[in-house]
């Protein structure tokens, strides 16, 4: 009577078991990515912005920056850094106030979802969109403007950690600055000028060393300048390091400043984050 076929065992998750934390975070990330991709404004203005900018810049400045290196090779670093800042800092700084104002955050707080899962969902969204956008930017630049991709594993590794550290700092600062906005609409009013000014003074639109010294010094207080500089170490020949303000690409300092901003952002998040609007107690 013994057979190898058994009646269907109740292997399905026992009732009374909620998905574990990691599974919840992945679901939350998937939901955030879906929401992002279905929002046309987000896709066009957040994801498309750096691509539009590189199309414009590479078309205007089709010359070389020196030693046979094309302008595109220089500007791609600014566009990648700007893209990463847009998808993290700007995207979160604008959308979190809207979600807070609409009561989406309050609604999540009323469920048994652990708080960190919501943040994890935002981070997963930023990382996924950031990677996709950067990849798209590189493909466009390689196909249309003959961008030279980094040639060594060491350069790709630098690319990886500069991007990761930069995105982490900008994500934390984006979450932190979201608490400054009093209403849904004021999010973009708070965040957009900050981003725009940083882009102008950090060497995204101009060769950094052509900016006035005082402007370079102000820019050096913020993460974007260091993200650009770290990426220049990835995309430009080593010899270009000598033209940096510090005489080299200063990768140690890049790591230090971006790491510091991660700490500042985290502290601000932990001390200022609000799940509800001010008028909501």
């Amino acid at each position, binding site marked *: 009577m013994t057979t190898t076929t058994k009646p269907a065992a109740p292997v399905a998750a026992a*009732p009374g078991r909620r998905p574990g934390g990691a599974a919840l975070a992945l679901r939350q990330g998937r939901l955030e990515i*879906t*929401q992002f991709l279905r929002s046309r404004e987000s896709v066009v203005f957040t994801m498309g912005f750096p691509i539009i900018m590189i199309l414009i810049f590479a078309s205007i400045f089709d010359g070389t920056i020196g030693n046979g290196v094309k302008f595109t090779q220089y500007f791609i670093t600014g566009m990648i850094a700007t893209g990463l800042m847009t998808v993290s800092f700007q995207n979160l700084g604008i959308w979190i106030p809207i979600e807070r104002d*609409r009561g989406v955050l309050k*609604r999540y707080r009323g469920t*048994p979802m652990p708080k960190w899962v919501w943040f994890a969902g935002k981070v997963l969204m930023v990382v996924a969109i950031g990677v996709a956008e950067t990849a798209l930017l590189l493909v466009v630049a390689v196909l249309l403007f003959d961008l030279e991709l980094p040639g060594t594993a060491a350069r790709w590794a630098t690319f990886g950690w500069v991007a990761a550290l930069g995105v982490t700092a900008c994500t934390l600062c984006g979450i932190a600055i979201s608490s400054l906005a009093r209403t849904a609409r004021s999010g973009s009013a708070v965040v957009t000028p900050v981003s725009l000014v940083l882009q102008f003074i950090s060497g995204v639109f101009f060769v950094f060393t052509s900016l006035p010294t005082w402007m370079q010094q102000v820019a050096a207080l913020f993460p974007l300048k260091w993200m650009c500089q770290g990426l220049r170490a990835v995309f430009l020949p080593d010899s270009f390091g000598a033209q940096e303000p510090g005489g080299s690409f200063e990768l140690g300092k890049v790591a230090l400043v971006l790491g510091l901003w991660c700490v500042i952002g985290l502290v601000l998040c932990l001390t200022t984050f609000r799940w509800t609007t001010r008028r909501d*107690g």
Partner: protein
Amino acid sequence: MDDELAISVRGLRKAYGDNVAVGGVDLDVHRGEVFALLGPNGAGKTTTVEILEGYRQRDAGEVRVLGADPAHPDPHWRSRVGIVLQGTGEFDELTVGEVVRHFSGFYADADDPDKVIERVGLGAKAKARTHTLSGGQKRRLDVALGIIGRPELLFLDEPTTGFDPEARRGFWELIRDLAAAGTTIVLTTHYLDEAEALADRVGVIAAGRVVEVAPPNRLGNRQEALATVSWRTPDGTPERAETATPTALVAELAARFGGEVPGLTVTRPTLEDVYLTMIGHS
């Protein structure tokens, strides 16, 4: 703690600066009961309920909700409490089905999302983006998210504000179904008919205090209140008298007029009269 009590509140106080929103509220809600907090805008209903829901911290008082202090909500307690807020978060880019399914993942013992969507009457809208829903349909989605975790206790903050009469009737049926299934329900409303139609007991709250708690038909001793008899004298002057024995008075008037009494009415205070007196607008 009495296990029969879903909610027990003693001396609850909450002030925002100088503005005392809740000034000493006492309240008991029994398990399985539908309890309505009735009061005008700004009376302290939402503040009270949001303290019970674990959203706001109180200044003073004893509060137990399902045996725990809501000031420190843990995930297990959260999974037993369903909340339908007044201002609700919208997920514009997602469909009804996606949102309900997503929230079902937060609960260990969640209900079947499709069944819940059907139950709140959104079956035909399951694949619709939430921003295409009407006001009433959005409220139904709110309820779906409030009940997806099979809560023991469901809070509904002004659930039918802005509904047309037909939508309200439909919504009331839904609440009655939930109550019949054993869910304890606490709802706030400023509609008298809503409290009267749904609640086992009504707590009238005015200026941050609970003025009375009673079944809707007993509020303000409405049943024992004096009846008002009014009529017109032969020269047309309106007359009225308050009496505990309206039948006797009407018989006497009938005898006096030798038949029909002109303009005769007999009334007792409506819930609205009682309510307006209680909240100080008599």
